[in-house]
């Protein structure tokens, strides 16, 4: 996925002079995950560079650049370090268009590795997509494969909206996949049905998709047919795809990494309620983190979702 993202950035930098890439250590070093490796060399320090260590400054300057016609793609070094920029995101990046009635737009992409499972220090394992999905004016997307990462990032850079592009760092290098060369886009806001099934719909995104796929194998062995939806977009949510699937299966489970309460899961359940109440054969359910801070590595396995936890819920829901 790292290569696919690099590729997308490379393509857009080559194609569009208004694209600017910056953030902490993204220039000389190419980012702590090497996502921007080689780009400064290729496009120069005016277009790909290291910023001071200040997230509000990074997002805030991106807003300024964007209203002045550039297309900044900025990196937050880790999910846990986006919060100093929270005010700039919620008060400006997501609002400038509305506030100026469309006179000024903020075509910004904020890239950010997120999620657990990499044995990291505190603040390096969080999945707080809900709080961003709840911010009006923002779009929040998560790819789950290298192919999607490339196509979605290109679409994000080309969008005139402000987009939080969350990268599941746990699978940065885990999935080997041939990614088409050259430019292609994947429309933002559309979910992807990656496995057809009849007994239960499982919704996931990012690193959780792979876990669900494994759980689906376990389910199959137990005679349960799982339909898997890769949500891809946290906001907006693709209601249609969810509605269609749950009407078919009558059961739905959402798998997320973040804390349970006010997580993505309950919103997906609500959509199932609104779209398919009379089709429901079991309560829409969720598999999520607990309402706790992601434990440090030695305790993280308690917190993380894995195929067992997912299968457990699949079984419960199907047997309901």
């Amino acid at each position, binding site marked *: 996925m790292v290569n696919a993202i690099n590729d997308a950035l490379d393509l857009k930098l080559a194609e569009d002079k208004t694209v600017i890439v910056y953030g902490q250590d993204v220039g000389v070093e190419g980012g702590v995950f090497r996502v921007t490796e080689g780009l400064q060399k290729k496009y120069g320090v005016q277009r790909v560079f290291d910023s001071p260590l200040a997230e509000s400054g990074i997002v*805030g300057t991106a807003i300024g650049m964007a209203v*002045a016609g550039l297309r900044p793609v900025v990196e937050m070094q880790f999910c846990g370090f986006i919060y100093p920029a929270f005010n700039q995101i919620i008060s400006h990046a997501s609002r400038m*268009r509305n506030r100026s009635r469309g006179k000024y737009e903020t075509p910004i992409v904020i890239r950010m590795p997120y999620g657990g499972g990499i044995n990291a220090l505190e603040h390096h394992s969080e999945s707080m997509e809900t709080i961003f999905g709840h911010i009006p004016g923002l779009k929040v997307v998560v790819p789950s494969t290298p192919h999607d990462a490339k196509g979605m990032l290109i679409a994000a850079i080309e969008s005139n909206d402000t987009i939080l592009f969350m990268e599941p760092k746990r699978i940065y290098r885990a999935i080997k996949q041939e990614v088409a060369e050259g430019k292609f886009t994947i429309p933002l806001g559309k979910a992807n049905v990656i496995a057809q099934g009849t007994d239960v719909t499982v919704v996931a995104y990012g690193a959780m998709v792979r876990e669900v796929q494994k759980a689906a194998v376990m389910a199959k062995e137990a005679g349960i047919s799982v339909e898997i939806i890769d949500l891809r977009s946290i906001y907006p949510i693709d209601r249609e795809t969810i509605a269609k699937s749950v009407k078919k299966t009558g059961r739905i489970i959402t798998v997320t990494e973040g804390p349970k309460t006010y997580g993505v899961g309950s919103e997906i359940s609500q959509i199932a309620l609104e779209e398919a109440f009379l089709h429901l054969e079991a309560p829409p359910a969720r598999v999520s983190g607990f309402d706790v801070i992601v434990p440090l590595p030695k305790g993280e396995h308690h917190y993380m979702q894995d195929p067992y936890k997912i299968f457990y819920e699949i079984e419960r829901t199907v047997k309901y």
Partner: protein
Amino acid sequence: MFKEYTPLKNKIFQVIDNDGKVINTKWMPEIDSERLVKIYKDMLFARTADLQIVSYQRQGRIYTYPPNYGQEAIAAGVGAVIKDHDWMVPAFRELGTMLAKGVTLKEMFLYFMGNEEGSNFKNANFTLPISVPIASQLIHAAGIGYAIKYNKEKKVAYAFVGDGGTSEGDFHEAVNFAGVWKVPVVFIIQNNQYGISTPTSVQTASENLAIKSVAYGVKGIMVDGNDFFAMYRVVEEAAKLCLNGEGPILIEAVTYRKGAHTTSDDPSKYRTKEEEDAWEEKDPMKRLKAYLIDKGLWSEKEEEKILPQFKVEIDRQFIEAENHPPYPKEDVFKHLYAEMPDDLKEQEKQYDRYLQWKSGKVKQQ
């Protein structure tokens, strides 16, 4: 200028005294008479508007409004230097500068009457909407500065903040980024002595606010913000330096908010009559007017003649704003996204259905 008037020595740049006499000929700017009179009139217009808005507000015809009066020389100084192609990044107490950029009073009224349409400036280019979260807008200016430099444009960005705003982390990040990137941004602190009820001494222990420039390796100066000539001269110099690649610049304009923080504030709670009287001596309009009268460029008679005209014009624009068509329901939904999400479209449709139901309901009763 920046060496001579270094904030490190707590020096303040001044050109005229409280009576409008030039006390600093070396730095007295050259401005032709006609232009000067025009500038004074603009200040007068802004002040008149300000006072009139306060009274509209008392009549309940407009919501909370933050008056500018007392701070007109700052707006006039920047207003006289800023170009159509320059960027204006306001806080919320920059009426005069906004008007100078081509924002109409009607638009300002519309905004303070509670309609976002008032921020969709029809004639003012490169002018951002009012920014309410204190100091946050300064960072945008640093980014705009980057874009100017990147595009090799000959432009300056002017960004405003209050004395209170210098306490926010965003102030720090903004000037610091601008300093590292060496971008053409003029940061203007309107030090009007208070952030709502809080005096500057509670905001910071620094000797003055201009001195904070040292922390970012940028040029800084403290200027008498009630002295139009001083303001003009400093901003002119700052713009020149910026265009020369020697930006950013940090200006502390020392002034006084004569009115309340906003129309919902009562300054008598936190400041004394004596203090207000002392500042009255330094009123920027009074000082420029004394200068103009002394030079035979202006008279009380002319002022008396023009004031009613201003009032009529202000009222005209106010009533135009009042008569602005009602807020279309579409405007609630339409402007958030360049590509509107399906779900939001659906929310609007549901709302339509509700409105239909409601009109039936309300009729029933």
